[in-house]
């Protein structure tokens, strides 16, 4: 029935992604040595999200998957987002 060949990622591409990941790791460690107040957590999480996206899109070949997987992944993240953010209707508004 289904014999579509999955896209093969070249060593070069994988190596570039690893380099990017290591660079981002270096940046996030470096930034942690400076006190930027509330921005520290946002930068750290922003970089983490970028790294996670690279691993997902390339190492886990999400970039080359079909609609079903891409949409369901977004849906899962959305559910997680709701779980976390809706907690704050409670916690952010307590006396």
């Amino acid at each position: 029935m289904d014999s579509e060949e999955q896209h093969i990622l070249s060593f070069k591409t994988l190596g570039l992604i690893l380099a990017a990941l290591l660079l981002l790791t270096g940046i996030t460690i470096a930034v942690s040595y400076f006190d930027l107040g509330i921005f520290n957590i946002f930068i750290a999480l922003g970089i983490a999200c970028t790294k996670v996206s690279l691993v997902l899109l390339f190492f886990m070949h999400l970039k080359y998957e079909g609609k079903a997987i891409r949409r369901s992944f977004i849906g899962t993240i959305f559910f997680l987002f709701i779980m976390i953010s809706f907690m704050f209707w409670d916690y952010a508004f307590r006396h």
Partner: protein
Amino acid sequence: MATTPSFYDTPSPPGLVGIKAWLLTHDHKRLALMYLWAVLFWFVIGVSIGFLLRIELMFIGRTIMSAEVYNSAFTLHGVIMIFLIAIPAIPAILGNFFLPIQLGADDVFFPRLNLLSWYLFMLGGLLAIVSLFSGGGFPDTGWTFYVPFSIGTKHNVPLTVFAAFILGMSSMLTGLNFITTIHRKRLPSMGWMQIPLFTWSLYATAWVQLLATPVISITFVLVIIERFFNIGLFDPDRGGDPILYEHLFWTYSHPAVYIMVLPGMGIVSEVIPTFSRKAIFGYQAIVYSSLGIAIAGSLVWAHHMYTSGMSDTAVFVFSLFTFLVAIPSAVKVFSWVSTLYKGSIEMTPALFYSLAFIYLFSVGGLSGLLQGAAGPNIHIHGTQFIVAHFHFTVLGGTGFAFFSGLHYWWPKMFGVMYNFRRAYIAAVLTTVGFMFHFVPMFILGLMGMPRRYYDYLPQYAHGNFLAGIGAIIMVSGILLMLINLLLSFRNKIAAPDNPWGGCTLEWMVPSPPPLRNFITEPHIKEYPYDFSDILTNPPKN
């Protein structure tokens, strides 16, 4: 004309004999029946415990059990009914049997994973039984296991929540299997908008099973960790917030009620058109409302927590979303009723239960709106009103839909027909008994009687006595229903392939079906509820 052997005579994998043909099966139909007997076993126990609880409450003071036993009894009743029956029953039994057939497939996508799901279900049940007798006694916390009591009580909480954890894994894997099956094993000619509504309801349910269950898994793991390592994550003295436990618990347990009811609604969406000989009104509306309920249902969990101490803003927001989630359910009720309108109606036991569902679930849903409003909730939270509400929705809803589905698909699964007269008597007894049993609880709750209380003030005596009478009638009806279905095996009245004149693919195969479900290549019409052929050639009963 040689008849193809049924799946009973053809084990899969081939070559298995005796009990191994069941315990090692890959056949979704055998698995469905193995779930059926397990669930009926738990159902008899769960109903019996409920019955004993209500006998205890019929009279003031101690009637048949002590207060300590009462607390464990209502916990056990809840744990069995929710984790071992209401959540798994329809997907694991009727879903497993009919989802592949409705899609034109020969099995689910991962048959061996399906077998694993069954073993996990049985393991969870076994652990629950063991936890009855292991040190400390069965938990007395209620099925909600609220902290700090669940962490502090001497009763054996870890084993029971671990059993629930295992049952959750079973549920997740079933959801995973159904989603993959629906995506990949449909007939090539069957587009998304041609999938029968029962299967659609299982699709929406499967997503909730898959995404929501891990939340309760981690929550129960944390309870076990707290019991053994005493970290203090929910202990206010050490930085924790007990309300956070409630948030985590209900983030699963509210979507869980949609796991319970969506498949039930799917059954009703099959039964109503078949016995109206008329296409379902608003097929697309039902599809989108099922998905809508699944999504919106994950936005409302804290309506179980208005009085817990959380912020007023949260109370407001969750109340707002709770009102919104009622809309897609109402859409379905309108669709069902519109289907019946000007239909060519044939009364059968299956239709009776589905009609009862529509009424009982509507009452349950409307009472839910009352609870969802923040003001009234202060008055009725923690009272018998809530007990009535969730029995109307879960028993009157999921339960009655399950009974309807059993009566609808029984001839297909077993190739035999049951006695109609006894079925109707049972159905009427169950429904009338249900009303006498649970309506008093609405009133008792409004009058202020708390739930989970072993004893009560004299003004509640009449209501509790009446509820007890209702229990006796209802349980008699349920018993008669089960006996009647089982008698069909003794009377062996052969059932035709399509006794009701249904349109979906399961009615195009023999009763019971062969191993690979289809003898010839299945063909579907443009629309799954096209009754034109049936109307020109109705089945003879």
